């Protein structure tokens, strides 16, 4: 068996395992389109070797989803400037349900909407997208300062209208969204307070990332 023939076999049936009648043919087409889209996206990325040191630094410190500084940026700031007197953690309400109802594009729009609201409220916000619960972290001088700004951000976010399409394709306007937040002396304390507010329960999925582990 020549290598060429083996390669041809592989090229000939890229998704040979998808075998469920006409649905299989549909799935196969969709998989190939998504694969082509991923390839196109990665083609548009600048090679690291083509990036300036500043661009590399920015890329490492920025959340792809929201453009906010990321968890690494939070850690850098804590180490460079010392720990903030108080910190807060917030989490969007019903993000998963929103994604299930309106799709991933609408979910991304909601995340960007929240990031805008946080910026407009003057918050020193960081987006930890590499987390099961999609967390936002904040540094502040006092609990009152953080509370005032976070409440302002909530008001802004509640007022935003999102153009979305439901699962049936019908266009709808979703009125705003809300998030919960909690303040603490450090991330572990804030996380614990937020878990209580959200009713997540000790030791649930994604718990303990910022400090205390479940027993």
């Amino acid at each position, binding site marked *: *068996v020549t290598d060429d*023939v083996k390669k*041809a076999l592989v090229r*000939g*049936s890229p998704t040979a395992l998808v075998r469920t*009648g*006409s649905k299989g*043919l549909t799935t196969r087409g969709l998989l*190939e389109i998504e694969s082509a889209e991923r390839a196109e996206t990665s083609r548009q990325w600048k090679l690291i070797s083509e990036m300036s040191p500043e661009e590399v630094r920015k890329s490492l410190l920025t959340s792809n989803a929201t453009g906010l500084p990321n968890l690494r940026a939070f850690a850098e700031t804590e180490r460079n400037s010392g720990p903030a007197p108080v910190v807060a953690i917030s989490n969007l309400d019903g993000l998963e349900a929103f994604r299930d109802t309106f799709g991933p594009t609408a979910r991304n729009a909601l995340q960007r909407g929240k990031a805008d609201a946080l910026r407009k409220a003057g918050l020193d916000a960081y987006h930890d997208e590499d987390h099961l619960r999609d967390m936002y972290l904040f540094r502040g001088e006092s609990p009152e300062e953080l509370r005032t700004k976070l409440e302002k951000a909530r008001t802004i976010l509640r007022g935003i209208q999102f153009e979305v399409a439901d699962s049936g394709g019908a266009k709808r306007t979703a009125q705003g969204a809300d998030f919960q937040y909690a303040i603490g002396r450090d991330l572990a304390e804030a996380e614990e307070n937020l878990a209580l507010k959200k009713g997540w329960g000790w030791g649930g999925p994604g718990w303990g990332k910022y400090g205390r582990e479940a027993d």
Partner: protein
Amino acid sequence: VTTGIVRRLSPEEEELAKKRDELALLQVQLAERELYVANLRAELTGFEGRYLRQVGVLYAELDDWSAKIAELVAEESGTDEARSAATQARAQAAESRSASHSEVAESKQFAPSPELKSLYREVAKRVHPDLASDDTDRTQRERLMAQANRAYENGDAEALRRILQEYEGSPDSVRGTGVAADLVRILRQLKQVRNRLAQIEEEIASLGKSDIAILQAKAEDAGKKGRDLLAEMAANVQGRINVARHNYESEARRLRTIL
């Protein structure tokens, strides 16, 4: 001076009137949602038909060439592994061929006229199985509703009219056997209609998440940017067919030379 005796409704009659109004509203809502889901189903089936005719047939052809190559490989190597791969590739080719020439592939683009929509809405409002008063009535309504769904998908307005006439002429369409019995029946109908509305929402959500719906959304997005996604896919698969055919022919020539 005119005087008259106004009969006051009994509490049961008042309740019945209230529930009747409630049911009438839900009937309209049910008919709208049935129409919506019927449109969605037919639209997706129409798109799937187009996809299968334009791209699916090419996948089937590609799989056929892949099977031929696998059979050549099996013939040359004679190993169990190669024979098994060839059998599997041939089964895949047969399946793709059958799927790309299935009934769905015959489906045309769905574009119902306003009259057809209105007729379907009327049938759903009057004949819907969840408005049945008893099991016999339900059986008849289910049969008529199934016919109505087929007629709607085929764009057959005449058949929808016949279904309406048939139902209106049947004894089950006649109402009224006393307040208490009516109330019980209407409460049961309300429950059934609410259940069906919930089922429709689930079906809409499930259809919206299906691969064909995602594919259709991608095709529409591409269309807005002036691209024809299905044509692009077809060209891509055709290119792979050409490569597979070339590989098969050169491998077949090589084998003939050896033998």
